[in-house]
């Protein structure tokens, strides 16, 4: 299984405000009644994009026309906390996001995203604020998440050092972000470990 080498993601960005955005917010549980991930994109952030009472579109940034087509999400601290549902990164990915920049990520969400080939990198609150201001002033501002060089750059002139765990960086840039083949290749060793465990 040859996977794409994801060394960088470029495009436009949108900022979603708030700390501790949990996966229930990203994809409400009622939309998880499905046996495939297809079609989850339209439900991303559903309850904040649509007024729960009237069903009308809210003034959420994702509803702003000028951010249509944004493929990079800017967020705050502890993004993706809560449930382990892969439905959350899947819905963001299917919505059109190819990379997420936040102050920090919840671990399960981070791992799930990496396995989809969607790099999640961290910047400081200040740096994210600069990018937010830039994209809000001019939504066509081009942002590049350079996973290889560990940099986030913008056409507004920013260059920030970003962070991502070594293993995730390595997996993304070398096209190994989905580990299944390597896990399968080690079958013999796996069986050995299994045999040594009395409860297995």
């Amino acid at each position, binding site marked *: 299984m040859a996977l794409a080498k994801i060394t960088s993601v470029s495009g436009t960005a949108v900022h979603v405000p708030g700390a501790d955005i*949990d996966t229930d917010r990203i994809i409400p549980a009622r939309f998880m*009644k499905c046996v495939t991930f297809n079609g989850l994109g339209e439900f991303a952030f559903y309850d904040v994009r649509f007024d729960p009472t009237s069903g009308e579109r809210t003034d959420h940034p994702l509803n702003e026309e000028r951010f249509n087509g944004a493929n990079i999400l800017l967020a705050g601290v502890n993004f993706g906390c809560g449930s382990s549902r892969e439905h959350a990164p899947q819905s963001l990915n299917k919505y059109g996001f190819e990379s997420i920049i936040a102050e920090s990520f919840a671990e399960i969400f981070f791992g799930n995203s990496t396995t989809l080939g969607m790099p999640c990198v961290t910047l400081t609150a200040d740096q994210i604020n600069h990018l937010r201001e830039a994209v809000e002033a001019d939504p066509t501002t081009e942002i590049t998440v350079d996973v290889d060089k560990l940099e986030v750059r913008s056409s507004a002139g920013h260059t920030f050092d970003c962070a991502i765990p070594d293993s995730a960086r390595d997996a993304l840039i070398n096209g190994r972000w989905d580990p299944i083949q390597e896990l399968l290749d080690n079958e013999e060793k796996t069986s050995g470990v299994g045999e040594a465990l009395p409860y297995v």
Partner: protein
Amino acid sequence: MGKTLYQKVWDAHTVGTLSDGRTQLFIGTHLIHEVTSPQAFGMIRELGLTVKYPHRTFATIDHIVPTINQDAPADPLAAEMMAALRENADDFGVTYFDLASGKQGVVHVVGPEQGITQPGSTIACGDSHTATHGAFGAIAFGIGTTNVRDVLATQTMAMESLKVRLIKVDGELKPGVYAKDVALDIIRRLGANGGIGYAYEYGGSTFKNFSMEERMTVCNMSIEGGARCGYVNPDDTTFDFLKGRPYAPGDAEWDNAVSRWRAFASDSDAHYDDIVQIDAAEIEPTVTWGVSPDQGISISETIPDPAEAPTEVLRNSYQEALDYMKLPGGTPIKGVPIDVAFIGSCTNGRLSDFREAARFLQGHTVASGVQAIAVPGSQITAIQCEKEGLDKIFEDAGFEWRAAGCSMCLAMNPDKLVGDQVCASSSNRNFKGRQGSPLGRTILMSPVMVCAAAVRGVVSDAREVFEVGEFDIAVT
């Protein structure tokens, strides 16, 4: 230097180091349910793979199960998920505790109940509350669906190693203070993201004296504190709980198993990356006031006033939470009216929870206008409760006694809040919209506190509602 349980279990289950530097970890026990497994089975079918160790894979159905007429979901999507799990279990030879088995229930209640959850093992499940199983001295991870695929196909997954934080709680809890309060208190102190990068080891005399149910309640909520897993070292309490359970080692292997399990406990000279010390006597009955599990206060405190928040970030997040909760900052949490009372979930849906709640509820009546529901964590729990007549006590008090499932913990079945109803809930998450209504409001607390709120119709101090004498203390 000695090792922690975490390190010992990790070492025993390491297959090797992957090219990206992560560890390939052997997962001895894989638990699956209807929400996060169908896509994974779809993926292995697509890749032409199979389930490597079907006998180490256990399925049950919990999230979408109706609690009235369990096996007849009116919702066609729920019926489709039910059918998919049945088919996948049959096709791949996976043990399935289905509705007809008499053993169905919330996956984190079923594993321990069946004796599948064992010390020194690695456990994974496509569900973040898998940390519950750590109560037995297992290392148990919640995983995403692609990981579920990996574990199905290879019985392994790629994992980054964690640091270990010892959370030591010593002393006796005051009457009316429960394991749930310990969990909420820890999360309040360390924050909803305080545990990122950590496994939590819960130690100290309080945990030593806890029952398995109490240990499970705290381990369950490790994830609310940001920790990927949490555990308690196995001891006689653990072994006594497991003895005689269907999947526990039989008499012939029992002694060997116990000595092997015992050896997994952290060494006294183990190194911890961090140590937190908490005095049990300081913990009060705790309730949440906001939309994150770390937004908690003791029952006698006032809701924080955003104007007094120490930082701007906190000020904003308090304000956002209070706007959603429609609660004024600076006022007491006690007295906030509730519409719904829910006792259940993998945090507090076990026999001991219903026993303790019934002990105080007996002779009281749910306030008019409050809908109160009690949902046992498993079919076995339901039968145990019914044998003891607990269902009658709940029903006499005005609770609805339902069938087993996740129910209103996340409301993927028909049990949902309506509009902006307020729910006093024994579950684990107070996120916006968590209980089925995009405007619904959740206040987390212990089951006994849920009973107190149900009886008074407002958030209350159970020690007052159920009278001083019953808790054998003088409450001022």
